[in-house]
């Protein structure tokens, strides 16, 4: 019997394990999933925590309850992957062998990569940081707020823009907008990676009177003097700083032969196969594919990984429908004042951005509410 091992119990790992379990008969393979956390976390909820628009408890469910009964769940922190001898080692010394492997260990913010970041900057990309930022915003009485991106790539590329629109609305509601100077910084010479969407977002920022500082590559945060400095030599003062930290792939992948120094796994953008290994696939945030690190990407990649893995195991060709990932991305963008827009695109077609409206926001909220029922179990 073949042994299938899935690393990570987030959006990608949970979904792909369930899809594989559905496709294969029990006697064909045993499926094991390793996760550092016993909870399955839905991170998009974190965007709303700083504004008290949602509750941190609604962002997670026990992972066990979302997995097909035949999947064996192992809880533990992976510290080593040896792809040559097909073995994974956990922090407690446990070793697990595999025949087929899926890497879906996501990405994580790495504030320690920027001097002064941990002491001086807020963010909302972890449970704790989002909750701390809620308190800071609650206590904010006016001054300079700087929101920015401290390194590329990072997950959910639209979240810093969404945060800016939401904080602007929040300040308005609290009658603090007149007393606040709001600035948005970005490492490129536009406000977003994708050029066509950047122009649109810039217009919206300008309409809301947000100052824009592009080509700002964060070099250091100086909490004592309350300023940030960029590689380009720009200095910006702040009273409240909200920065997306640089990101990395899981620690055990950083410098592993299947990945680069940052932990991004070398992955074929169509087959999702890991370069040089016929029995390993990678999906979600951890890949080095130059595409958004977004839950929707992982969601659309999962059927391809499941189809290809099963076909390899059975020595058949993958069914045409899910043979390749075409680069599909769907991102909702909160634009404040009860409205949202969305970006939908793939490798061939650049995004079109509809005018922000209430219907799209409703779609986003409903999707977030229905997420646990619909996505990890593979209902949609």
């Amino acid at each position, binding site marked *: 019997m073949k042994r299938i091992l899935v690393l990570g119990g987030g959006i990608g790992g949970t979904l792909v394990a369930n899809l594989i379990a559905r496709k294969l008969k029990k006697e064909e393979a045993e499926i094991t999933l390793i996760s550092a956390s016993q909870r399955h976390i839905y991170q998009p909820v974190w965007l709303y925590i700083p504004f008290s628009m949602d509750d941190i408890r609604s962002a997670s469910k026990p992972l066990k309850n979302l997995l097909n009964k035949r999947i064996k769940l192992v809880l533990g922190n992976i510290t080593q992957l040896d792809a040559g001898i097909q073995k994974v080692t956990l922090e407690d010394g446990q070793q697990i062998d595999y025949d087929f492997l899926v890497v879906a260990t996501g990405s994580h913010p790495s504030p320690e990569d920027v001097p002064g970041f941990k002491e001086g900057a807020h963010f909302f990309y972890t449970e704790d940081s989002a909750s701390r930022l809620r308190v800071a915003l609650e206590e904010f009485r006016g001054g300079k707020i700087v929101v920015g991106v401290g390194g*590329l790539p990072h997950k959910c590329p639209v979240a810093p823009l969404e945060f800016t629109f939401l904080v602007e609305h929040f300040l308005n509601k609290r009658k603090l907008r007149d007393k606040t100077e709001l600035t948005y910084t970005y*490492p490129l*010479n536009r406000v977003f990676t994708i050029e066509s969407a950047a122009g649109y977002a810039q217009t919206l920022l300008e309409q809301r009177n947000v100052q824009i500082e592009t080509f700002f590559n964060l*070099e250091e945060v100086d909490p004592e003097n309350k300023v940030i400095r960029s*590689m380009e*030599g720009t200095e910006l003062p702040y009273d409240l700083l909200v920065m997306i930290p640089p990101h990395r792939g899981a620690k055990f992948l950083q410098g592993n032969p299947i990945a680069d120094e940052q932990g991004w796994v070398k992955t074929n953008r169509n087959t999702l196969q890991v370069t040089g290994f016929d029995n390993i696939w990678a999906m979600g945030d951890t890949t080095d594919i*130059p595409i958004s690190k977004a839950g929707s990407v992982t969601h659309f990649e999962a059927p391809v990984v499941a189809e290809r893995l099963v076909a390899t195991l059975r020595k058949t060709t993958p069914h045409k429908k899910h043979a390749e990932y075409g680069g599909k991305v769907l991102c909702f963008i909160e634009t404040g004042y009860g409205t949202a827009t969305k970006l939908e695109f793939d490798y061939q077609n650049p995004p079109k951005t509809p005018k922000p409206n209430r219907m799209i926001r409703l779609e986003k909220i409903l999707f977030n509410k229905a997420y646990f029922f619909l996505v990890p179990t593979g209902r949609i």
Partner: protein
Amino acid sequence: MQGITFTKEVDARGTFCPGPLMEMIRAVKSCSLGDVVAVISSDEGSRKDIPAWIEKAKQEFLGEEAVTGGYRLYCRKIK
């Protein structure tokens, strides 16, 4: 352009904007004063974006050179 010696080269062919620009930024960040960094890009946008960033960051753009499947762009770290 040929004959420029560089300290570090990053081959970013096959990645799309902002990949090559970010590679340039990363390389300049991690190298020493006086070093020359070369980035090879197959993305047309890089020929505009990379020199624009070098100018903004007050580094020295040494030019570009056509190579198979793209361009090699050079930057000297001067500050």
